[in-house]
Structures are given as structure tokens and as C-alpha cells.
């Protein structure tokens, strides 16, 4: 059995009447990259904060790196790197000053060398005396990551690290995360991007505070029991609104000129597709693999139903 870097059970966090995180269990093995997905306001940030000791759970318990998430808060902070959703470094300090500060707070030996190394890895040596506020979004994210790995944490908690960052910067960001994981660092990263989810070893999907699915991308798709079809041909994409409210259909979305339809019910799909084919001549339909996005939209729908039923 692998050693668990994160092992939490039944985490609950309430704000007033609202339960933001509702009995979430999460186990992540050492050296794994776990993608944390879910709609906005589903409790991803709150869960991350509870794991790294920034919030006290109302219920539940667990460990992070073997330390209790409540009693061992200080020990966790020393060994974890947490990258906040909003840029958390000081915009009115230079790049080097920010790194100096972080290095000193963690009590690193030889601050100067460590910071120089970090700057070299980032390729920011020539701009080290520039104000941090003048960096572009992509650079800020890379700097923030560099700042939170300088003390060689055993675990990284990244809260939507690539929001609003261009594809090239995202790509290099993820290369870096994989390199870190190869060194044995455990990573829990929240994201909205499906391509990023697919780059994770495993995925945890949370909606309305409840953990809805766990596993690899393939496992999650396989377990969802969803079926999908794709309709191609001129103007197929414009027929999406026709199917959105069709009975039993989870999602009908245009992808370029193709129309992608999915549902847990194969008959419902066939019925819906038949309607489309009848509505317009010259279209072709064939079976397709449901995507991760289909699964998440499906899960979100289920969670909404639960929330309404409760």
C-alpha cells in the first residue's frame, strides 16, 4: 500500500446556513497528481484551505503528510506549498525581494543562493529587480509556483493556478508540475480545464460541496455509464438548441460544425438524433466516446437534483 500524502475523512465546512463542503473524503498517494474539479463555488478552494490548515473544518478529520490537519497545522505549513487562486505575492516588491521574503520566512539556509537558483530556473534573472506587479499573468503564476516550491515542500496545493493564462504558459506550467511529481512531490491542483484534468494521474470531482467522482479520467468516463453520438454535416452545430431540452438528454453541444449529444440513456440519444436527422437533410450520425466534460455536466446535473431534493 502506498503512503497517503492526503488522507481526510468527512470534511464539513458551513458558512451560516450554507454547507460549502459536505462530508468530503479524499485520499491521495505520495507522488500523485490529483486534479480537483468542479463548478464555481463547489467547495474546491474551501477543501484545499482545510487541508493546508487555513480553515478549521466544522466536522471531519484527517492528516496531511501524516500530520493532523488541525493540531499539526504549523507542521503542515512548513512542509506544504500552497498557491492561492489570487496572486498572493507583493506587487510592490521586486521579483527578487518577494523570493527573498519567502525564503526567509521558511528559514532557508543560504537565502541568496536559493533565490538565485529559483530565478535561474524561472529564467527571470535579468528581470529580478523589476516590480512584480509589472509581470504578465503567465509570469506571475510561474513566479508564484517558484515561490511555493523553494522550500522543497512534500506536497503542493494549487488553487486554479492556470486561470486566465495562455496555452503555452499553461503547457510549461504543467511540464513543471510533472517534473515536481517525478521528484516525489504530491500535487493537488484545482482547475476548470479538461485538458489539464486529463494530464492528472487521477481526478476528484466535487459539486455543491459533495465529492461526486474519483479515479482516472478513463475510469470516471467508464463508470459514468454515459453514451454519446456525434452528428456531422453542414449546419449540424446549429441544431444544438433543438436538443437541449429533449427528454433524457444530458448535453447537446456544438463542437465546431459537429453536434455532440450525450445521455445515460442510449434510447434517448437515438430518439434525439433521429429528430435532428429528420429536421435537416444531409446529416450523418455515429456513435462516439463521451468526454470528461460530458461526465462532469452529467454529474453536476445529478448534484443539482440532490441539492434540490435535500
Amino acid at each position, binding site marked *: 500500500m502506498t503512503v497517503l500524502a492526503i488522507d481526510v475523512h468527512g470534511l464539513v465546512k458551513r458558512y451560516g446556513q450554507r454547507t460549502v463542503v459536505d462530508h468530503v473524503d479524499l485520499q491521495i498517494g505520495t507522488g500523485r497528481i490529483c486534479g480537483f474539479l468542479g463548478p464555481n463555488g463547489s467547495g474546491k478552494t474551501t477543501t484545499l484551505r482545510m487541508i493546508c490548515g487555513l480553515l478549521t473544518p466544522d466536522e471531519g478529520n484527517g492528516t496531511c503528510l501524516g500530520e493532523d490537519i488541525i493540531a499539526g497545522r504549523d507542521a503542515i505549513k512548513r512542509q506544504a506549498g500552497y498557491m492561492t487562486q489570487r496572486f*498572493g505575492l507583493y506587487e510592490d516588491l521586486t521579483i527578487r525581494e518577494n523570493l527573498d521574503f519567502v525564503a526567509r520566512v521558511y528559514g532557508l539556509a543560504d537565502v541568496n543562493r536559493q533565490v538565485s537558483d529559483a530565478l535561474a530556473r524561472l529564467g527571470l534573472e535579468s528581470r529580478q529587480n523589476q516590480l512584480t506587479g509589472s509581470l504578465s499573468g503567465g509570469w506571475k503564476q510561474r513566479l508564484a509556483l517558484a515561490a511555493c516550491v523553494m522550500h522543497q515542500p512534500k506536497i503542493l496545493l494549487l488553487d486554479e493556478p492556470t486561470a486566465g493564462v495562455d496555452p503555452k504558459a499553461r503547457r510549461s506550467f504543467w511540464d513543471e508540475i510533472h517534473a515536481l511529481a517525478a521528484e516525489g512531490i504530491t500535487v493537488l491542483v484545482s482547475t476548470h480545464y479538461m485538458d489539464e484534468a486529463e494530464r492528472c494521474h487521477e481526478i476528484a470531482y466535487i459539486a455543491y460541496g459533495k465529492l461526486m467522482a474519483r479515479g482516472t479520467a478513463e475510469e470516471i468516463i467508464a463508470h459514468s455509464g454515459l453514451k454519446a453520438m456525434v452528428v456531422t454535416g453542414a449546419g449540424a452545430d446549429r441544431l444544438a438548441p433543438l436538443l437541449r431540452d429533449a427528454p433524457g438528454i444530458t448535453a447537446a453541444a456544438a463542437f465546431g460544425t459537429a453536434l455532440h449529444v450525450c445521455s445515460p440513456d442510449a434510447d434517448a440519444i437515438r430518439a434525439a438524433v433521429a429528430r435532428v436527422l429528420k429536421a435537416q437533410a444531409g446529416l450523418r450520425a455515429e456513435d462516439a466516446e463521451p468526454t470528461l466534460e460530458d461526465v462532469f455536466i452529467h454529474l453536476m446535473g445529478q448534484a443539482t437534483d440532490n441539492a434540490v431534493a435535500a
Partner: protein
Amino acid sequence: MSGFSRRLWAMMTKEAHQLRRDRMTFAMMFVMPIVQLVLFGFAINTDPKGLPAAILAYEHSTLSRSIISAIGNTGYFAFVQEPQSEAEADALLQRGDVQFVVTIPGNLTRNVMRGDVPGILIEADATDPATTGPALSAVNAAVSQTLARELTGVLNRHQAGTQAVEVRLHRRYNPEGITRFNVVPGLLGIILTMTMVMMTALAVTREYERGTMENLLAMPVKPLEVMAGKIAPYVIIGAMQVFVVLVAAKLLFGVPFVGSPAVFGVAVVIFLTVNLAIGFTFSTIARNQLQAVQMSFFFLMPAILLSGFAFPFRGMPGWAQVLGETMPATHFIRIIRGVMLKGASFPQVANEIAVLLFMLVIVVAVAISRYRVTLD
């Protein structure tokens, strides 16, 4: 509606909605004027009565007693001490325990009967001329009236219009009664209160507003370390401010500095730290920078009005004096006036320094308990 008035309306409603959400600002706008009106309306009195005085009597006779009671009857003097020697009386005055020392010379009655004009000495702590002024101007008339009534028969050797006893006024520490000498050291206390509290009042709120607090909390830095780290640089800035004010006070106004720079330095450092810690506490309470600034102002007003800076401390009613005692500026101003103008030594200001230290401990304890290590 025209385009202008529509857009104006849009702006106005937006501002009104935002203001309505900011409960604290809203409360301050209504509570502050009322509190201040009541507080300062009742507390401020520029004609202080019942000032503590010591009587040093070398003769106890009918005449001396009636002179003392005449002085007391002006209402300005409250005899609370009866020192046995000149040195003891001096110490009382220097520590600020009394505002006046009245000395009745020996052989008073005999000298009056012989037709000499003996002198009654009234020494005043004139560091604040506003406090002593009205008392000193009332005392002469009161004494001569009493003498005219008392000195009848054989005692009345003097012609009408001449004085049997001379009242000599001695304005100590500030013989010319220069108001500036009193105002400048007091101003130092006020300037430091204003700048220091404001500086750190923004310290924590700024971290929250800029979104850097979460990152800071995720790192292994302890509340006391955050607080001390945020305060320390401003102690140095405050010390520089003090230096600038002192040089300006000397060059522009010729304010004397007769006491010990070391005692002065100790008091300054403690006072700076207390104020910075108060500002830090505000910043743990305020939700945004505007609120923090408002709290600083709310704190500054009584520091100006009730600390003895702007109005005589002893002129205020008891409750206002109690309130004044709770403010660091009150104690600091006493120490600074004592050291600069009266040459007070460490033991003479030790009590006030102890009070400042006590305040420091309390404020730091409150600040640390208010500082959250989580985002809960």
C-alpha cells in the same frame, strides 16, 4: 430625462448602495458627532478650578490661616499636601503632584505688626500657562481683601491702598509663561499618535485587500512575528520624526530641553510601540482600509482634546480625567513636558512610564488574540 441626469442618477444610486453596505462608515458618521459633542462639550473647561496645591507653612497663626483660606476660597486652589521642607515641596511640583506650592514665611504676624511687608511665595508649575494663569490672577485680589478685613485695630498699621503682605508669584519651568514651550512637547505626542496609529492601522487590512493575506497565512509565520515585523520599521521612522520635531522646536521656537535624553529616549520608544500596537489592533478589526483610517481618527480626537494637550487636564471633570488617563498620549505628554521643561529624572517619571508599559502589554495581548491564523 437627459443623458446627463440619467448617468448622474446611476452614479448616485450606485454610491448610495455601496455606502449602505458599509455599516461601519455609516455608524461612524452618526455616532461620532454625537459622542464627540457630548464628550467634549462636557469635558472641556478652559478655566480649571480646584488645582492641587501644597502648603509649606513656617508659621501657624490666625493670620496665616486666614490667608490660606482666602487663597483656597478663590476656588482655584485645593490644598492637598503639606510638605515639611522646601525640598519636599520642590519634588511635589516637579513630579506634577501639585500645580502650586504656597509658602508662608516664619514670623509672619510679627513682621506685619512691625509694618514690614512680608512676602507670601506662590510657586506655580507654569509649564502650561493656560492652567495656572487664571489662578494666579485671582489670588492677589483675594489676599488683599482678606487682609483689609482681618487687619483691624493694632494690626492696621498700613494706610489704605497699601499692602500689608506681598504675594510673590514665581512661575517655575516657564518663567515667561510662553505657551509654545508647553504646546511643542505636547504636539510631539499628538503627531506621533496620529502618524504611528495610522501607519499600522493599514498594515493587516492592506494584506487582506491586496489578496496577500491568504498567502501569508499559508506560510509558517507566527502572529507575534507578523506584528513585531510590521511594527519595528515604524519605530525607526517615529524616532526620526521625533528628532526632526526636536530640532525644529529648538531652532524655530527656542523650546528648552533641560532633562535627560536617555529618559526621553526610553519614553519615546515605549510610546511609539504602544501606538503602533494600537494601530495594528485596529487593522485586525477593520474590514477595509477606509474603516481603519476612520478608527484612527476616532482614536486621535480624544487624544488631542482629553490628553491635556489642547486644554488643561486638571480642568476636566473627574470622569473625563479618568478617560484621559486611559490614553497613552496623556502619559507621554506628562513625561515629555517633565523631561524637557522641568528636567524630571527617571524616578520622577517612572510611574508614567510604568503606565505606558502596562498599556503596551494589554494592547499587544489584544492584538495577538484578534489576529487570526486561519481564514475562519
